[in-house]
């Protein structure tokens, strides 16, 4: 029974429900108390112990239905279908035979009606037993053993490792082979080669059984796929998305990317939200002060305050939204806004030549909308970094202080215009950090109209940034550097 639970927990984990070993133990204690008898009761109880958010509860529901329905359904279904088929078998065979013999007899003699009617009963008993193991198993009609054999074969070939749906056929065949399908196939061919009616009949029956078994195996594999692979396939896709160049991500994957970004952001939030610094004023913490000053003879020498402050970086993100770079800025902005809990003060700007603030836009509308509007308002026009820096200086320089981090995302391709790198230098002097993220590889930084070399001199940090992994690292560093 414990084995069942452990496998269930494994299934839950693939469905992205985080279940710790301790929770598995809790679940066992819970099952001891509840038992397997009352299904709904069991489900409610396990849901309480194992799933810990509304989303997880939903996933848990489907998992539970799929998982605990399986054996039950399998047995029932098999039994049902088998009986059904047997009945059909009998009918079909009887009919066929009756017709055939009827025809022959009609052709032969007219008085054979009685004999014709009796033919189905006279139908020779199938006395020959198949030689192959699987054949014997099939003929014995022992469903439980067959199910066990199926599950064991599944385990043997590792059906739980199935990742994408195209593997279904492969695993079906593997399981068939593991169950002894080859021997059975050979036997069938051999039997067909024989002339005897017994052999012919046996081969027919075996064939039918084999086909049905194959359907069943395919069904089984499909269920395993839904239990194990659906989500791990997703994980695989997400891993890939993290590494792929952002500009190559297709539109249909945006939703997935958004999920990935939110996940990454959550990770960063949990790492960084606990960074705290003692405050220097506010309410007196008597308890701490007394404790601390016991050693100074009760004189209030080292005073402690109650309030604590989380020091959060103030971020200004300036994003180039001209065609080649807009994909990157989209994800940077997405990242920054997903971090709202630890980065409450993000201001974002977009430009291709003139700079405009898009903070409100991104806060109040969906990413798609915001991006579209930004592109509409700022997207057209040739890139002019000099103009952008000049605009930034005139509008926002006053808000820049030694706590501000300025992130600039762009390829620094200035169309041979005036780079105005002295303005960037001014910003550099005034703020805490200037980080330049360039989606182009380092190789091409000094090629053509790129001004990266000049700008790099006025940055604290220059990074190549063209995938989510890069972005995560940059933003993670950003949060770490603030202390």
């Amino acid at each position: 029974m414990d084995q069942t639970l452990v496998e269930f927990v494994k299934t839950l984990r693939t469905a992205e429900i985080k279940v710790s070993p301790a929770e598995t133990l809790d679940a066992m204690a819970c099952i001891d108390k509840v038992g397997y008898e009352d299904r709904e009761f069991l489900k409610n109880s396990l849901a309480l112990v194992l799933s810990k958010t509304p989303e997880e509860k939903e996933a848990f529901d489907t998992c539970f239905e799929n998982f605990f329905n399986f054996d039950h359904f399998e047995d029932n279904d098999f039994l049902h279908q088998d009986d059904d088929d047997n009945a059909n078998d009998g009918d079909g065979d009887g009919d066929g035979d009756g017709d055939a013999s009827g025809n022959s007899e009609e052709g032969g003699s007219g008085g054979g009606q009685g004999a014709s009617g009796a033919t189905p009963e006279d139908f020779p008993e199938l006395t020959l037993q198949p030689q192959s193991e699987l054949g014997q198993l099939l003929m014995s009609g022992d469903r439980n053993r067959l199910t066990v054999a199926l599950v064991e074969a599944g385990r043997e070939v590792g059906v739980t490792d199935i990742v994408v749906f195209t593997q279904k056929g492969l695993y079906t065949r593997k399981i068939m082979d593991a169950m002894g399908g080859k021997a059975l196939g050979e036997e069938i061919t051999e039997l067909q080669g024989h002339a005897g009616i017994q052999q012919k009949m046996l081969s027919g029956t075996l064939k039918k059984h084999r086909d049905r078994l194959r359907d069943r195996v395919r069904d089984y594999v499909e269920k395993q796929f839904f239990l194990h692979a659906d989500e791990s396939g997703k994980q695989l896709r997400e891993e890939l998305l993290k590494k792929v160049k952002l500009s190559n991500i297709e539109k249909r994957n945006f939703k997935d990317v958004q999920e990935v970004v939110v996940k990454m952001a959550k990770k960063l939030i949990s790492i960084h939200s606990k960074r705290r610094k003692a405050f220097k004023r506010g309410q007196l913490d008597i308890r701490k002060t007394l404790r601390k000053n016991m050693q100074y003879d009760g004189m209030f020498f080292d005073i402690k305050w109650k309030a604590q402050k989380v020091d959060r970086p103030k971020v200004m993100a300036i994003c180039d939204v001209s065609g080649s770079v807009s994909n990157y800025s989209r994800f940077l902005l997405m990242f920054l806004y997903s971090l709202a809990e630890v980065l409450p003060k993000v201001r974002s700007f977009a430009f291709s030549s003139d700079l405009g603030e898009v903070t409100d836009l991104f806060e109040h509308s969906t990413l798609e909308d915001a991006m579209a509007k930004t592109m509409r308002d700022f997207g057209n026009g040739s890139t002019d970094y000099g103009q952008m820096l000049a605009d930034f200086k005139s509008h926002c320089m006053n808000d820049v202080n030694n706590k501000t981090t300025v992130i600039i995302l762009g390829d620094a391709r200035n169309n041979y215009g005036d780079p105005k790198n002295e303005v960037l230098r001014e910003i550099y002097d005034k703020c805490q950090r200037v980080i330049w993220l360039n989606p182009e590889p380092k190789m091409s930084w000094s090629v053509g109209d790129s001004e990266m070399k000049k700008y790099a001199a006025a940055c604290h940090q220059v990074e190549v940034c063209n995938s989510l992994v890069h972005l995560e690292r940059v933003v993670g560093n950003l949060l770490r550097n603030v202390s």
Partner: protein
Amino acid sequence: MALNNDDRLASVDVIQQNFESRNYIANKQIATAVFLAYHLGKPVLIEGPPGVGKTELAKTTAEMLDLECVRLQCYEGLDESKAIYEWKYGKQLLYTQVLKETLNEVLQGAKGLSQSVEKLHEFGDIFFSNEFLEPRPLLKALRSDEGCVLLIDEVDKSDHEFESLLLEMLSDFQISIPEIGTIKANPDRKPLVFLTSNNTREISDALKRRCLHLYIPFPDGDLEKQIIHARVPEIADNLRNQLVNFVQELRELDLKKVPAISETIDWARTLILLHSETLDQDLVNQTLNVILKFQEDIESVEPELATLTNKALKDT
């Protein structure tokens, strides 16, 4: 007493009946949670939108078991001195003064520094002993001999630190006070702990892991009718059905704050006060502020009031 409680919590059905007799209509999940909480000795973390009866569940459980309900309301900045214990600083300071004056008597006959120090040590750590300890809710709950129901309300309002503070209490039912040692709950009378959260922020995994997690959503129509029947028995069946239908319709709309059960109950009481027998548009219009708490919401609902009211009337 324990036997008694075992009886009251013997099975999910019994729990449901017991709750019902106390005018709290619990579905199977809720009853299962209470059942497991008692029998596994685990705290229950209850999440759900405001006003679905999270706090009420804890209170009703306490009532059902004839236990004291110790409540700790969480808020930002709540710390151990308010949740677990505090030293009585005033008393400590006073005693220090007294001691200063009597120091000579105490040290009488002591020769040399080492003897004096020895004598002083004999006082022990009286300043940090039980007499100077001011127990707060968590400590109170642990120390109660009869067992009790501990309600930690709106735990999502507290800080991360406080959550970590709760961990020891929730997993082992004990609290460590550096100066005194570890205080454990009576193993046979562990407090039954309920934590509620409105999900304003994620509760940490460590805390979630130690709890049973119960999510109470808005009830469906039938359940809500039962609840209203239990809470406001004097309301006519007809009006009750109309009212519940109307509220269920409202929940489908895109509102800033959808009405919760508590608001439905309030509304039912209001309508009884007004001696109304059936819903109509004017009546709804006049009493809308009982169920909707934002002017924006009221404004957005008003134009559709006629349709909604008619629908609610028609469905019954």
